[in-house]
């Protein structure tokens, strides 16, 4: 094994690292913003309200992310209307296609996590909120959502890791993220082992960082669940 090639190409890897982090972070923020309304609608008891968001969740959780990404990256060009519209500026760029498909995908998974957390709210909490005369909006803002977010935290940590791992797909559609950088290094020097293992190590570090971050977050937000220190 010859890791000199990797050291020579470290700038490329760091460029890829930055792209990966930016892509994942933006997709997660956008996905979370989408997921909250979807989850609220999907948790509704009215079947006509919940059917569309549930179908959204079912589709995005039931199909591979790579298919969703191809549908946006390769698929959108099929429609002449799309190619002529102003949206084409966005849909012809691989970066935007990856970002959009990642955000839509993580929105589906996050919405399901939140929906489950909302559905699990203790009914006594809702009863006492009603007894205090809270309107639905206030009840959601003060009672249901804060506790649902707390319950959703561990599962959301897993979703963030899955998003990071899924983001390697961006390298397949010509984006120079960590995986894309490894592909370039391999293509130039033919060092498949070294180049991909280096990328793997970067991903491993990012995963550990996320795990640590969520541990800290849980320590803060789940402080009331910790056994009391005597």
């Amino acid at each position, binding site marked *: 094994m010859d890791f000199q090639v990797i050291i020579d190409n470290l700038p490329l890897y760091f460029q890829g690292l930055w792209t990966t982090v930016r892509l994942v972070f933006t997709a997660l923020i956008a996905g979370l913003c989408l997921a909250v309304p979807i989850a609220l609608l999907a948790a509704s008891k009215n079947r006509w309200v919940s059917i569309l968001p549930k179908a959204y969740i*079912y*589709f995005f959780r*039931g*199909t*591979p*992310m*790579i*298919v*969703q990404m*191809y*549908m946006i990256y*390769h*698929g*959108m*060009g*099929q*429609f002449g209307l799309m190619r002529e519209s102003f949206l084409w500026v966005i849909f012809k760029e691989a970066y935007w296609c990856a970002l959009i498909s990642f955000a839509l995908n993580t929105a589906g998974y996050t919405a399901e996590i939140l929906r489950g957390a909302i559905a699990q709210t203790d009914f006594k909490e809702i009863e006492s909120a009603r007894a205090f005369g809270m309107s639905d909006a206030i009840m959601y803002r003060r009672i249901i959502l804060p506790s649902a977010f707390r319950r959703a935290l561990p599962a959301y940590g897993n979703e963030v890791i899955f998003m*990071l*791992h*899924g*983001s*390697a*797909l961006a*390298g*397949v559609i010509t984006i120079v993220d960590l*995986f894309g950088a*490894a592909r370039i290094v*391999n293509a130039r020097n033919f060092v*498949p*082992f070294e180049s*991909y*293992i280096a*990328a*793997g190590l970067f*991903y*491993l570090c990012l*995963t*550990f960082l996320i795990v640590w971050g969520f541990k800290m977050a849980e320590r803060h937000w789940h402080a009331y669940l910790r056994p009391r220190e005597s």
Partner: protein
Amino acid sequence: MSVIIDYIPLILKGMLLTVELALLSLLIAMVLGIAGALAKLSKSPIARSVAGIYTTIIRGIPDLVLMTILFFGGQIIVNDIGDKLGWEYIDISPFMAGTVTLGFIFGAYFAETFRGGILAVSRGEIEAGIAFGMTPIQVFLRITLPAMIRHALPGFGNNWLVLTKATALVSVIGLQDMLYNANLAGGSTRKPFTFLCAVAFLYLVITGVSNFGLRWLDKRYSVGVRKA
């Protein structure tokens, strides 16, 4: 429309490969998973740390990256060993590489699931087995394994669904699964969206059938358990 119908056999052929790939790698993953779970629960510190490293590394690196490492690297390693032992050049088929890689990756996830399942089996049942004079292997095969399935089933179902979706990644390393064939068909007919929709639908079919089967299994293994 007729153009699309011409390509249906190709897509269905790809679907067959996807299902084969998923089932075969499930088999490998379950064997590795049980071995990993037993190693994690064993008294030997070496077995525990080997299993710990295996699950941590596999679950910390994207499956796509692992697949490329094992696919390209595995080929080199096998032939390096073959060179020293004087074998002829061995060409690993993409199907074999894909199956082994997916099995190897998901073995780590199954190890965690099975570990949880084994821990959920009540200690009393195992003690009863020992009291009957069973050997450790008999205790595992007759008591722990059947009793653990019920506890491991939800995690098992989850892993299976993630595994079927991960099979789509093999199209990146050149295996002709349904996604690969759909891209081919979409490229030559200039209707990629139509074919990708068909693939998405077929994945939903696989998921739906699996959910149905998993519910049946759950019912079968929860016989005798009272539910609230």
